[in-house]
């Protein structure tokens, strides 16, 4: 894919407007039977000079259990860039329905710490459209630089699945990758997630996706109950890893079973050290403390 000049937006788009627009687009496509096309839009969206609100940052840090420093947590930056990534998926030439997409994986590389006082340039685009046994998947990439700088300080790749959507020309993998049997280890932590967990994260992330907000709004979208936001779960795991990770690290998560609220989620974090005893990586896995079903797993590693 050739990269075009970025489409520069005047300000960070409003997520609520994007959700409304996405619903309208979905309805229009259903009524008119139109399709947007087979390929991903080549356009990159960019917003310059973005600044985080310190009140929002504090509320996020308190909710997630992060140290309330002036450095933006990597998960907070994801939430900051998310409206721009959404705006790419909201384009008329985006081939997949935005609503109902499933977040499969998230990979972040935090190369340098960013503080709330700094103005940030944010770019987002879609790439890597590919088949999945259950539909079509793609990556949404976001990059954050200090305003005017070339070096990328934060880069996030979010892999989404449009379930049941098969585009022409994209082969679907023949066999499902065999899910390894999971046997829960002894936990190192236990999270009690109340029914309001989704709303609390919506309030600090700005992502008011109805599947996280309430039983009713989730049912309207076909779920039996509301589910915890994946990035809330992954961000809490990142916070639980603690200060050992320092300022520069990679942070990956792969989501498996959704966490229906309320929930008791058990977590195991294991630490890997080098021969000098210095922290190298922390691997985490979370499961339902009653059923033992795996919810998600991932790692945080030194760069």
């Amino acid at each position, binding site marked *: 894919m050739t990269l075009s000049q970025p489409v520069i937006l005047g300000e960070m788009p409003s997520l609520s407007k994007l959700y409304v627009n996405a619903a309208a687009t979905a309805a229009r496509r259903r009524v008119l039977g139109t399709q947007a096309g087979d390929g991903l839009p080549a356009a990159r969206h960019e917003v310059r000079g973005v600044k985080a609100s310190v009140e929002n940052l504090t509320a996020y840090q308190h909710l997630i259990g992060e140290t309330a420093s002036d450095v933006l947590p990597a998960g907070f930056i994801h939430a900051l860039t998310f409206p721009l990534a959404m705006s790419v998926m909201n384009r008329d030439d985006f081939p997949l329905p935005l609503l109902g997409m499933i977040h499969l994986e998230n990979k972040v590389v935090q190369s340098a710490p960013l503080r709330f006082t700094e103005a940030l340039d944010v770019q987002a685009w879609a790439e890597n459209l590919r088949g999945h046994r259950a539909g079509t998947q793609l990556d949404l990439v976001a990059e954050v630089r200090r305003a005017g700088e070339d070096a990328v300080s934060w880069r996030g790749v979010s892999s989404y699945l449009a379930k049941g959507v098969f585009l022409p020309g994209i082969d679907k993998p023949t066999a499902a990758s065999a899910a390894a049997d999971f046997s829960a280890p*002894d936990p*190192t932590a*236990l*999270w009690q997630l109340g029914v309001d967990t989704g709303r609390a994260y919506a309030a600090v992330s700005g992502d008011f996706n109805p599947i996280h907000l309430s039983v009713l709004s989730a049912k309207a979208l076909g779920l039996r109950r509301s589910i915890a936001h994946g990035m809330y779960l992954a961000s809490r795991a990142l916070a*639980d890893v603690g200060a050992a990770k320092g300022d520069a690290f990679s942070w990956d998560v792969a989501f498996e079973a959704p966490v229906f609220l309320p929930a008791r989620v058990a977590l195991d*974090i294991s630490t890997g050290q080098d021969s000098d005893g210095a922290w190298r990586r922390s691997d985490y896995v979370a499961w339902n403390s009653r059923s033992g079903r795996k919810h998600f797993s991932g790692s945080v590693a030194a760069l």
Partner: protein
Amino acid sequence: MSVNGQSAPGPKESTTPATPGAVTAAASPSAGSPAAGAAEPTGRTAPRLRRAVIVGGNRIPFARTGGAYTKSSNQDMLTAALDGLIARFGLQDERIGEVAAGAVLKHSRDFNLTREAVLGSALSAETPAYDLQQACATGLETVLGLANKIKLGQIDSAIAGGVDSASDAPIAVSEGLREVLLDLNRAKTLPQRLQVLSRLRPKDLAPDAPNTGEPRTGLSMGEHQALTTAQWKITREAQDELAFNSHRNLAAAYDAGFFDDLLTPYRGLTRDSNLRADTSLEKLATLKPVFGKNLGSAATMTAGNSTPLTDGASTVLLAAEDWADAHDLPKLATVVDGEAAAVDFVHGKDGLLMAPAFAVPRLLARNGLTLDDIDFFEIHEAFAGTVLSTLAAWEDEEFGRTRLGLDGAFGSIDRSRLNVNGSSLAAGHPFAATGGRIVASLAKMLHARGHVDGRPARGLISICAAGGQGVVAILEAL
């Protein structure tokens, strides 16, 4: 290991710590020659420091939560324990050098809990006081801090103590209500106030009760200990036996009148209400496990081999020798030395309550001592599994080598010297009050024992605490 502390040179050498990096091993000339050190306080501290002696103690009987002290506040109980101490040692209107105490479950209005208790007591109102909070180590840490001030000559007398009420625990308002109330206070105009109030939601009115979960893990202390108990493969039978011994020993101590000069009745209680003199191993074996039920291994921790939530208070009178002599007061024991440790429990490197397993080897090494040199072990029974896991770690070759930096296992203790007058499983455990209970009881036991093989009888106290901490201390008979 022999009962009389007459350890042969062989085992002693094998258990002498090989000065691992963590241990600041000062020269300890009298380590192996008890007679030479008989009149000297053990330890590495500067020779000019004077001794801090334990004159005595007083506590109120400990009550299971929801029992005799349901309506008693922390301040009520601390004042009661303090007044009993004052009466016992004739301290009315006395200006004590300093009083330090604390509570683990403490309301913010009790910011000056100890000073308020002093003002409500018969002590001189010119007695200063401060609060201290180090979870379950609070009581022992007040003893160590005040003893250090006495040793340095800053004060001549001190009262250490602690209190906790699980019945009268503070309950916080929800975070939503708290924020609204704070913002309301900042709002200046009526419309602003109404706007703030409009944010209130029904769920904000639900109170936020304290829980026993560790903040960073969400696991309760019992669940944490269940992980450690399983890791060290401590059996249900061993835990029940320890609990049984605790009840048996405490009951025997009461029957022998041991607590007659350590305790003041309060609110109708004359003995700790958790004590079950008639319990048996058979009865303990019938109890269902309460912790560790979701682990891979069998659950072994029951209400019988775990401490119950308890209310109570304790105090200890400390002094410089001159002060005690001038007031014609007894001198039971000296506070020799203390050590705090902490473990990295958050991701399971060590068990939450295992810090004393590290603190004791460091403390003994600094004082040139081994486990064989201890005549009384007071290892706080947060759970039977805590005591047994600590002992198992000390007996483990691998733990000794890799974690303590020794040549092999740290050593084993003579179980007949362990918690000989009962401990927390029988007495109960009002968190901050446990340190004072143990220090006063051990000082009395040491004084009664007097000398062993020409050296003062020696006791070791080990207390684990939330947050992966532990505080340990050595006392010696006078």
